[in-house]
């Protein structure tokens, strides 16, 4: 598929919009359906799509394996870290009330960060899964 000009152009054009959609789903989760998990899947799908059209090495250049592995750990750490921050600021574990000036602002901040953590981990895992399954077929 690497040689198909139309596909290549469309893929390049679609990439930013897919990523933008992922960001929309991420931040619109408060008001409509969506959230970190769905955003992570969509974001990963953008890169997967890119790698299918341009080949796996190109995809790996866009999102290197090391970065992806760091992403999946960092997301969980971010989430758990928000929880620990709750303890540090005098609340219980995962207590968002203490994170901001007033309870609702704290809730907002907490939800924002944990959704970011979820998206990070999910995108990392989905990409990693794709790399693992797709990369393996080559040497069989």
């Amino acid at each position, binding site marked *: 598929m690497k040689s198909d000009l139309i596909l290549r152009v469309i893929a390049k054009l679609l990439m930013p919009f897919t990523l933008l959609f992922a960001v929309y789903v991420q931040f619109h989760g408060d008001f409509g359906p969506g959230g970190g998990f769905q955003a992570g899947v969509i974001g990963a799908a953008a890169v997967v799509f890119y790698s299918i059209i341009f080949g796996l090495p190109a995809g790996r250049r866009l999102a290197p394996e090391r970065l992806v592995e760091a992403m999946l750990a960092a997301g969980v750490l971010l989430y*758990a870290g928000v929880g*620990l921050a709750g303890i540090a600021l005098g609340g219980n574990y995962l*207590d968002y009330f203490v994170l901001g000036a007033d309870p609702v602002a704290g809730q907002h901040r907490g939800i924002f960060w944990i959704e970011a953590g979820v998206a990070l981990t999910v995108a990392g895992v989905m990409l990693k899964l794709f790399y693992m399954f797709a990369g393996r077929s080559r040497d069989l």
Partner: protein
Amino acid sequence: MFEHLPALQVVLPLVAAPLIVLVRSRRFAWLATTAVSYACLVISVALFTRIAANGAVSYAIGSWPPPWGIEYRVDALSGFVLVAVSLTASFVAPYAQRSIAVEVSRDRHYLIYAMYCLCLAGLLGITITADAFNLFVFLEIASLATYVLVALGPDRRALVAAYQYMILGTVGATFYVIGVALLYLMTGTLNLGDIAARLQAVEDVRPVLAALAFITVGVGLKLALFPLHQWLPNAYAYGPSMATAFLAATATKVSVYVLMRYYFTVFDPAALFEHLPTSEVLILLSVASMVATSLVAVFEPDVKRLFAYSSVAQIGYITLGIGLDNQASLTGSIVHLLNHGVTKGAIFLLLGGVALRCGAPALGVSALAGLGRRMPLTAVGLVIAGLSLIGVPGTAGFISKWYLILGAIERGQWWLVAVIAAASLLAVAYVWRVVEAAYLRAPAAEEAPREAPAGMLAAGLAMVLLCVYFGLDTSFSVGGAREAAEFLLRGLR
């Protein structure tokens, strides 16, 4: 800081895993794992002493009051199981370093430590949570980590074992969720204490009965309740040694704990044991398991599988205590959670050392020939742990069987005393096969004595000492178990 211990108990190993994956260093992974295991032990002991003095501790995660938020609850029973799990972990973690070095390829080391941390966090999370659905989530964390641990075993049969375990484990977890769904639909809540309170007002008992059936079968699959034990022998036999030791000592025990928790604190135990044939069914299954799987163990050629079948038989003792439903038998069951965990942990830790020196992933009984001369300390350790498995006075195994027999007598079930004795005789038979091979058979080739690496041997022997210690000083083990049994029986009656 003190009031946050329930959360930290689970969060520490939970955070260690991604840190290990982030750093990717073998040395850091081992250090973090060991540090976390010891920290968990300290926390669990602190919690245990605290609840012994002040009663149960409740912790609202996110500061949302239950039943709206998720509650962590440490009481006499869960506190005891927390100590039992983290105690084993603190022996397995130092052992892992050498054991993994031989059995798993180098660039996977940090991942196996991460899996071990996740498994530990999952098991602790199952124990401490007071929320039915949260329990499922942590059950899945522990299970997924376990499947990976087993699949990383040195033999290709480990893969098939992990696959079978995974299919049955997932079916079990799904059944559990169905059971929880029925309870939720009838009560509108997921908090275990709240469910129990609201179940008493439920008029139509049919959904509750179905929930009971689904949860029993689902958890039964996880704890290898006879005849749902088919996954266990292979998973234990082909996984890496440290994984086998850890799982044998903790995973099935935590599932038994879940069963106890549901039977005595969620469902109405009075109705459960008086109007339903729960007692009879549990006792029959336990007896079948004790006799049948012990018989299989007597004829099993592979040593690890032999002791795996013996594990299924020992789980039979524990469920027997639940079925008998009185103070003495429950004390026996709960203390057997700890005692059998320590005993089996010791055996599998030592066998890991033997497998390492024999150089073969599958360990036939004949491979133990002359072990008394080749690895004298290991052989002595195996014999002592074997005695504890049989239930010889002076070892941990004796204590739990003693209480089970007391419980059987209290119920007037003399035939069960005979069954326990018969099963112990079968245990003598299979342990004797190991002893006979180790001391009475000449080694295949004459070679200089060579023990397992110091770290592995020390961890194994330390656990053997623990077997003897819990056989002599029962103030913690029986004391804690008695409190827990009282707590269960007080439950809703």
